[in-house]
């Protein structure tokens, strides 16, 4: 091989690669509208994108996994956190996270109401882009989603000693209501309960930890602040699922203006039987 031949190799291979690349660029453009739901890019979404850029969000967070690695990925955040939660968070992040404990905190950007609404609209649009199924498993901001790790000894006993751990077993529909409730908690309910509630003590996600729920429910019912109708722990849990705003868990990160951030749609999306199973499961946290 002489110098002229290697030069031709460089030129021809570059040209071929460039042509193929440009061809695929054209084809990608053909598919962008469908993959990105381009018809849903409303003026609100566009303004939200400008907010995203203006506040330099990408140099701490990632979106589609791109950006800086100093703060959580936000690609699917609106599927994990509702708009009321995100609004309250953006108003004052320090009410949600403690810099002493987490060692980092988002500065208060002093966003206006409209900016926040637009930004959430943008993030919601992002969460619906067809991005090849990434992430393969939800990326949580805090808490844990390790199946099985969060079971109490009592629950493990309730589903039999010689069987594999409950989380590893498919549910056939004939099990103990507690086990069925547990499966619902992680899978069936939409949004899934475990997206916002941990059952590990002291781990507050978007919603408060449900550890020790039954005994705490009794304390709440006995307290003078309680205005609901429940008489026992089961009743309290049922009431909280069906009408979340009747009793508000203390803390600015869980409610605002007398409204809980928890969706009130479960009464419609779950059957009465399923709600019974969830209650049975949650009441098992003594």
């Amino acid at each position, binding site marked *: 091989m002489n110098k002229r031949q290697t030069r031709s190799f460089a030129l021809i291979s570059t040209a071929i690669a460039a042509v193929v690349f440009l061809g695929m660029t054209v084809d990608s453009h053909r598919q962008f509208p469908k993959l990105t739901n381009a018809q849903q890019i409303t003026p609100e979404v566009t303004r939200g994108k400008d907010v995203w850029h203006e506040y330099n969000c990408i140099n701490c967070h990632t979106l*589609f996994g791109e950006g800086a690695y100093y703060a959580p990925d936000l690609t699917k955040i609106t599927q994990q956190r509702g708009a009321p939660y995100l609004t309250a968070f953006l108003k004052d992040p320090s009410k949600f996270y403690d810099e002493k404990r987490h*060692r980092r905190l988002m500065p208060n950007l002093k966003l206006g109401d409209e900016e926040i609404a637009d930004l959430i609209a943008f993030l919601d649009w992002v969460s619906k882009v067809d991005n090849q199924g990434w992430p393969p498993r939800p990326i949580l901001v805090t808490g844990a989603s390790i199946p099985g790790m969060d079971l109490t000894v009592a629950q493990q006993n309730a589903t039999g000693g010689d069987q594999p751990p409950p989380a590893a077993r498919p549910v056939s529909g004939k099990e103990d209501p507690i086990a069925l409730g547990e499966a619902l908690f992680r899978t069936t309910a939409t949004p899934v309960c475990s997206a916002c509630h941990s059952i590990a003590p002291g781990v507050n996600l978007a919603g408060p930890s449900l550890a020790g729920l039954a005994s705490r429910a009794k304390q709440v019912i006995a307290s003078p602040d309680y205005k609901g109708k429940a008489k026992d722990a089961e009743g309290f849990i049922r009431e909280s699922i069906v009408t979340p705003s009747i009793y508000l868990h203390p803390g600015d990160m869980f409610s605002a203006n007398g409204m809980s951030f928890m969706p009130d749609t479960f009464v419609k999306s779950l059957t009465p039987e399923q709600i019974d199973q969830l209650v049975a499961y949650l009441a098992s946290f003594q």
Partner: protein
Amino acid sequence: MRYRSQSVAYWYFAVAMVLFGLQLVFGLLSAAKYLGPDPLLNLLPFDVTKSIHTNLLIVWVLTGFMGATYWMVPDESRGELHSTKLAYIQLGLWTAMGVTAVLGYLFGYGTGNKLLEQPLPHKIVIVICMLMFLYNIGMTIKKAGRFTATEGVLLLGLTSAAVLYLPALLHYENYVVSIYYRWWTIHLWVEGVWEMIQGGFLAYLLIRLSGADREVMEKWLYVIVGLVFIAGILGTAHHYYWIGVPHYWLPLGGFFSALEPLALIGMAIYAYNAMRRSGLSHPNKLALHWTLGSAVFTMFGAGLLGLAHTFPDVNKWTHGTLITAMHGHAAFYGAYAMIVLAMITYALPGMTRRPVEESSIGYWAFWLQLGGMFGMTLSFATAGIGQVYLERILGLGYLDVQLKIQVHFLMLVATASMFSLGAGLFIFDFFRHAPDFNVDEADPVLATPRASGAAL
């Protein structure tokens, strides 16, 4: 120094050195914020220090490229630069652009588009500077009437770098489409045309330092350029994972990214062989250290560590974690920072009163930087592996995981300090000797290597 106008390069290098030092200040600040809590949270938050860190990198490396080109082209074409005045105006404009951009970031002015944060007026100045630069170089070559293949590769790389910056000037309504074209600039720069620039400098340095045969070196340079582009252009696909583009980019990215190390391994073998065959004959051994170091560290940082997370089945877990920071630091330092430092080390004795023979400060600067950067790469790698396992695979929350990998951030700060010490020594060594722009035909820098190189 053989041509008077080559002295322009000194001032470009001087600006590059100052910006390099500044880049490390902001890098160390950003690293410290990983340890937290951050007392500067409301004054100088992470997003600001991080964008200044990356922007200064781009600006100083490009300043270094321009300076090195102003040094190399008169040498290769055997003639004075077309206009030194234009080169100084360009440097002034360029530096003003860089400084005002950084000041702007401090006060929150920026586009918020990763690595392309420069506001539109700054982007336009960048384009103007590049045009001035290319015009000046083009006219120099035209006047001299001698155009080598090494120059050709370098110049084509620089021109394409300017052209590929243009998509960054456009505005896209759809965020996914804007990401798509952002990579035309960023990826095709660092994994395409900048590698051409690196290859051009590498060939120049090897020919000068080892006395390797020009025909052979340039022949292989073309092979490397061909390999870079086959893999590099279609390898853009590995940035098109998970962002909302058609699915065929996934297998394509896996295949062509796997080819990318080939060119880089080729480059390292090329450099190593050139040195072996000719037996380290040039008195400026320190420059040879930087030259070979650049080729080898590129193979490690860009080639190997890139390959480590480039397959879609791996990348779906590692995407957007500190694994990317691991690859980014090692690749950019090896390929671009080190080649600029090599050109500076080679050219400096010709422009200052500095002796050609190596000094111990020079070696300390080299090994402290190398050791420090290797340690930083390992810190990011261990932190990243921990993060992927705990956060992505076990499903622990992001914030909880970051607390569990604190020890790696401590290691990062320690090794980054070591790196900064080495860089500080390099900068000190640069400014230690006053400039001396005497034109000297018998300049020892240009000494022909004692043992003439055998063919590769």
